[in-house]
C-alpha cells in the first residue's frame, strides 16, 4: 500500500517535469511567431539583474516607451516588437542572451548596454551579421573592427576630448587635477584621452590620483594630495557614488573646489543620503537632463514617470533615441519586415554610413561615422538649485 502511494508520487513528479519541459520547448519556439504580420523584431541586451541593473532597466523602459509610441501612432504601419534579455553585466551571459534572441527571430539589436558585454556581443553580431546600435556602451573596443555596430552615446575617448577642450577654453587659468578609477575601463578610458588632449593644448595636469573599486569610500589621501598641489578644478571621470563621497569629504576638509564630471555623474542628485547642496556648481558633460525645458524631453519625462514611477536617467533617453533612429533608418532601407536579419544588417549599415541623421532627446542631427562613432554636440550642464542647467 505504502509503495503504491510512493509510485503515485513519483509519477506526479515525473509528469510535472515533462510538462515543464514542454512549456520550456514552447517558450523557445513561440518567439519566432512574432515575426508574422508587419512587425520588426528588435532585441535588446543589458543587465536587468545584478549591480548594473539600474542601467539595463532604464534602457528596457526607455525603449519600451518609444516602441509603444511608434506602435500607437501608426497601427497600420510597421509594428515593433521589443524583447530585452538579461546579461547580468557579464560577457558570457551576454553572448548567451544574443544567441537566444537570434533563436527567437531577432532582426535588429539594441545593445548591449554595458561596454564589456557589448564587446563580446559585437563580435558575435559581426560574424553573424546582425545590425547593432548600442545606447550606452561607450568603450572604443565596441566598434573597433565591427562595421555593423554603432554607438548612440559618446565614446569614452570623445568624452575625454570634449571635457579637455571645454576646460582648456573656459578655465584657462585653473590648476586642474584628476581623480579616476584605474580598475574601471570606463573611467581609465576617459582619463587617458583627457590627459593627452589637455596636455596637447600646452597645459599640464597639476595632480592625478587614482583609486579602485575596493577602496572607493575614503578619499582623504587623494584630496589632500590635490589640495597640496593647489588644484582648484577637479575632473572626475567616475560614477556618481564615489563622486558623492569625494564631495562630502572635501567639504569636511574645508577644501573649496570646482568639480567637472562626465555622464557617469548623472544620478548624483537622486542619491539617497547625499546632501545635494554639496553638488551645487558641479559642471557635467551629459547628453540628457530630465530638467531640460525642451518640449520633447518634458513629454518623455512625463510619460516615463507616469508609466514607471521614476525619473528617467540618461540611459533611458539613449534607448528611446535608439528605437526612433532604428525605426527611421529601417524606413529608409525600403525593406519589408519579412527581410532577414542579414539583409537588414547590410541595408542599415548603408543608411547609417550615408547621410542619415537622427534627432532625439539626447541631441539634434546625430550623424554616424563609418567607424560606428556618433557625431553630436556635447552639452555641458551646471547644477544650480538642485537642477541641471545647460551652460
Amino acid at each position, binding site marked *: 500500500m505504502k*509503495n503504491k502511494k*510512493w*509510485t503515485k508520487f*513519483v509519477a506526479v513528479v515525473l509528469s510535472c517535469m515533462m510538462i515543464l519541459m514542454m*512549456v*520550456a520547448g514552447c*517558450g*523557445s519556439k513561440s518567439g519566432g511567431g512574432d515575426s508574422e504580420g508587419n512587425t520588426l523584431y528588435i532585441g535588446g541586451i543589458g543587465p*536587468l*539583474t545584478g549591480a548594473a541593473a539600474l542601467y539595463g532597466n532604464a534602457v528596457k523602459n526607455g525603449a519600451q516607451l518609444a516602441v509603444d509610441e511608434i506602435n500607437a501612432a501608426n497601427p497600420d504601419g510597421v509594428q515593433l516588437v521589443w524583447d530585452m*534579455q*538579461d546579461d547580468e553585466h*557579464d*560577457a*558570457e*551571459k551576454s*553572448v*548567451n*542572451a544574443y*544567441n*537566444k534572441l*537570434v*533563436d527567437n527571430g531577432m532582426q535588429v539589436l539594441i545593445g548591449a548596454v554595458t561596454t*564589456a558585454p557589448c*564587446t*563580446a556581443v*559585437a*563580435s*558575435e553580431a559581426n560574424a553573424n551579421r546582425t545590425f547593432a546600435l548600442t545606447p550606452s556602451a561607450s*568603450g572604443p*573596443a565596441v566598434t*573597433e*573592427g565591427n562595421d555593423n555596430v554603432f554607438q548612440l552615446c559618446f565614446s569614452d575617448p570623445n568624452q575625454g576630448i570634449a571635457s579637455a577642450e571645454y576646460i582648456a577654453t573656459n578655465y584657462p587659468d585653473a590648476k586642474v587635477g584628476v581623480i579616476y578609477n*584605474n*580598475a*574601471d*575601463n570606463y573611467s*581609465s*578610458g576617459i582619463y*587617458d584621452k583627457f590627459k593627452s588632449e589637455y596636455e596637447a593644448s600646452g597645459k599640464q595636469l597639476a595632480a592625478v590620483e*587614482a583609486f*579602485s573599486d*575596493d577602496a572607493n569610500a575614503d578619499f582623504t589621501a587623494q584630496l589632500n594630495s590635490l589640495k597640496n598641489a593647489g588644484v582648484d578644478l577637479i575632473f572626475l571621470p567616475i560614477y556618481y557614488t564615489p563622486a558623492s563621497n569625494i564631495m562630502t569629504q572635501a567639504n569636511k576638509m574645508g577644501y573649496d573646489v570646482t568639480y567637472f564630471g562626465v555622464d557617469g555623474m548623472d544620478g548624483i542628485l537622486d542619491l539617497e543620503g547625499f546632501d545635494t547642496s554639496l553638488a551645487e556648481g558641479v559642471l557635467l558633460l551629459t547628453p540628457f537632463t530630465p530638467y531640460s525645458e525642451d518640449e520633447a524631453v518634458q513629454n518623455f519625462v512625463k510619460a516615463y514617470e507616469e508609466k514607471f514611477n521614476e525619473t528617467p536617467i540618461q540611459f533611458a533617453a539613449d534607448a528611446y533615441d535608439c528605437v526612433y533612429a532604428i525605426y527611421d533608418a529601417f524606413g529608409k532601407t525600403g525593406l519589408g519586415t519579412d527581410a532577414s536579419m542579414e539583409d537588414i544588417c547590410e541595408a542599415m549599415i548603408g543608411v547609417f554610413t550615408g547621410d542619415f541623421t537622427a534627432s532625439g532627446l539626447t541631441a539634434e542631427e546625430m550623424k554616424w561615422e563609418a567607424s560606428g562613432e556618433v557625431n553630436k554636440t556635447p552639452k555641458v550642464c551646471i547644477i544650480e538649485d538642485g537642477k541641471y542647467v545647460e551652460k
Partner: protein
Amino acid sequence: MAERKENKAGAKRLRNIFFGNEYKKEATISYGILIVGYILLQLGANAGLIGRNLQGQFVPICVYISLAISLNLVVGISGELSLGHAGFMSVGAFTGIIVTRMMEASMPSGNVRLFFAVLAGAITAAIAGIIIGIPILGLRGDYLAIVTLAFGEIVRNIMNVLYFGLDGKKLKFAFNHTIDGVEGNQRIITGAIGATGVTKTATFTTAMLLTLFTLFVVLNLKNSKHGRCIMAVRDNRIAGESIGINVKKYKLIAFVVSAALAGMAGAMFGQNYSTLAPLKFNFNTSVLILVFVVLGGIGNIWGGILAATLLTILPEALRQFADYRMLTYAVVLIVVMICTYNPTIRARAGMVWEKISPRKRRKKKAEEAADHDETGKEEM
C-alpha cells in the same frame, strides 16, 4: 540453451570490465556521460534540433565540467577547501590569449594555436599553484580556504593593472599605464578592460577533448598509488604520517595538478570569447565552481559533471520566467541541495531505484526464488 548460457557469461564478463569495482564503475559512468552527451549534442546540432542559445553554451559547459572535475581533486579527493579556483583559471586564460596573439602571424591553424594556449595555460597555472601551494599547504581547514580566497583576489587585482602589448615581435608589459609604442590592435591586455579582439579558436570538439583529458588525469591519479596516499592523508592525517606518507608532498601534488587543469580550462574559456575581463574571474566564479562540486556530491566525479552541466544550462533555460529568473534559479538550487542531502528523501529515492533497476529486481527475484526453494522444494 548453451548459447544463452554463453551470452550470460559474456554479459557478466562485460559487466565485470565496466562495472567490476567502484573505480571501474565511476570511470564508466563519467566517460559514458561525456561521450554519449557529446554524440547526442553533436547529432542534434547537425540536425538543426538545437538552437543557437544552447549551441553557444557547449564550450562553456565543457569548461565548467573540467573545472568541477579538477576542483573535485582538491575538495573531494584531497579534502581541502579551495576558494581560489577562478584565480588559476584567470592565469591560464590570459596566458593563453597572449600565446595565441603572439602566434597569430606565424601559425594559421586555429587548433594548433589553441593547443599551445592550453599548454601554456597549464604551465603558468601550475607555477602559480606551486608558488601558492608550498607556503600554505601546511595550513589546515579554514585557513587554507582563506588564503586561496585571497589568492583569487590577488590575481584579479594584478590583472586589473597589467598591460601587455606587442611591439613588432616583442612582447612588452607594464604596470598601471599604457605601453609606449604599442597602439590599438597591438594591445593584447589592457588592465581592467582585459583582452579584446581575441580570435575565437575554441570548438565543441576540442573543448570536449580537454574535458576528457581532465577526467582521464583525475581518475587515473585517484586510482594510482599517489591517489591512495592523497586519500589516506585526507581520511587520517596522523595515521598517514605514521606510516611514512609525506603529507605536504601529496597535498601539493593534488593542488598543483588541480591548478594546472584549471589553467587549461581557463585557456579554453578565454579562446571562446572575443573579449575577456579580469572581473570575470572573481570570487563568485570560484564559488560557482565549488557549488558544482558540492551539488554533485563532494568526491563524486560524475555527479560534478551533471551538476556543472545542469547549473550552466539552467539560468538560460529559465529565461522565459523573465523577472523571476534569478529567483527561480535560487529556489531550484536550494531544493536540489535539500533533496540530495536529506536522508529520508535519499532513502525513498533508493527504494524507487530498487524498483526500477532491472538488475536489482532480478536479484530480488532470485532471492525470492531461493526462499521458495528452501520452503517448497520446487524447481521451475
